[in-house]
């Protein structure tokens, strides 16, 4: 559980979410349960089973390489937390 508290803090920091202590504890508990369930799944031997992501393999539609627009830049930027011209503005990130 303690480990999940740390993970919850780390993910919250990465996602720039500010969680109060009560919310943080609730999310850490949920995360703990999810991880426990995942650990339960580890018990299944899948060493010789290919990963499966879909019920139907190789039946996906493709599309042709032609441009089309359904939305304007303004519509898309409407949900931007902050903007400068048509740039999105985010807190400084330097790798």
């Amino acid at each position, binding site marked *: 559980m303690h480990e999940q508290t740390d993970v919850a803090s780390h993910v919250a920091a990465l996602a720039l979410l500010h969680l109060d202590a009560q919310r943080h504890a609730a999310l850490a508990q949920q995360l703990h349960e999810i991880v426990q369930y995942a650990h339960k799944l580890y018990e299944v031997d899948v060493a010789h089973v290919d990963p499966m992501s879909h019920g139907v393999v190789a039946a996906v539609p*493709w599309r042709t390489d032609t441009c089309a*627009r359904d939305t304007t830049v303004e519509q898309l930027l409407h949900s931007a937390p902050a903007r400068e011209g048509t740039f999105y503005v985010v807190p400084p*990130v*330097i790798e």
Partner: protein
Amino acid sequence: MSRYETVIGLEVHVELKTQTKLFCRCATSFGAQPNAHTCPVCLGHPGALPVTNEQAVLLALRAALALQCTIPPVTSFDRKNYFYPDSPKAYQISQFAHPIGRNGVVEVAFGRTTERIRIHQVHLEEDAGKLIHEPYRSLVDLNRAGTPLIEIVTEPDLRSAEHAKMFLEQLRDIILYCGVSDGKMEEGSLRCDANVSLRPIGATTLGTKTEIKNMNSFRAVQGGIAYEVARQTALLDRGERVVQQTRRWDEAQSITIAMRSKEQAQDYRYFADPDLGGIALSDQLITQVRDALPELPLAKRQRYEQQYGLSEYDAASLTAHVALTKLFDEAMAHAADAKTVANVLLGDVCAYANAHDAPLSTLPITGAHIAQLAALLAQGTISQPIAKKVLKQTLQTGEAPNDIVATQGLTQIQDSDAIDALVTQVITAHPQSVADVRSGKTQALGFLVGQVMRASQGKANPALVNELLKKRL
């Protein structure tokens, strides 16, 4: 003599030449207003679903086949998870479990020897957006986010910085020949990271590697790797160990700088993308794409040497540019003289393109034009100076050399009497030069030949002019 063997593997990102992004209909063109080429799919809006661009898959398949990879019956996409503002979905759609090609090989010419550099895999993925860092904020432009790329990963088969550069140049040529990408390193459509390690000569296990990023030119690839080899050699010579880390090439200082160590490396938690099913690559499709592959640069270069007797230098120079080989092959289809065609292309045509800063493919000249010019020269119909004049006009206007020669009456004067009359005029007009030649100053003969050529407006046969002048002096 170093006590160590250098071991290099490259990861090369190649932007595919498509009109639209990998999973949405946004344009991939360069230089638009920030975020003008975005939509709910490439911005990762909830509920927006990706649909794969057929052309991107076909180009990736073409590249994988050109690199002699084994193609799986089904290829699929995986999510590579990471948090960074250049990736609005917080994951990149890439290929992990079932890449489009594995176990390929590239035949690379290092001078006179040819070596096989193995390709570990080729996979398809989407590019990230672009960030502009300011002191207290970062600006995000997602026009490039979702642009299709292939990543070509080599086995650690390269043994020097120079070879790595030569390999990359020849890989770029293959990509260009196949029409998979425009391969412009300066615009970021070809990018390269290098994994470099050293091991004692004779050892079979690999040493600790460092990864070098941010090498944006062929020169940078060579410089970055050479620096890293020297840095690691110095460490090992001092009895220290190489730390596994990612380093950045700093072009201005010509050094590599540590970015992050292995301990800080991210776990990308790859998993199959549930929004995208697998793509079946039938034998019929693979055969169709393989059969449509063009002759690749090294094979073409060897053919030019063997079939046409061109020198290694001429063959290499011609095959270094797709547009040049296209013109050469077109000209040779008209049974032209190979050496003359090579000389015209590598000499005056390239010089004209360079002087006018014009890509060869935009010039109005065709292979048939070059063949005509070569034939006019071989038959003695026009002289070299006239050939230059005709070629210049063809390059400017696209007029055929045969038409230019006919309409402007540029046919070479072969008539001895006509040339002799011009020789007489020149001898009379330049008594001092005549005296110089007679007193043994042979340079003056060149001057007199030039005067006769000038009097004939370049049309006299220069060999005949020489002969007649010598006879009279």
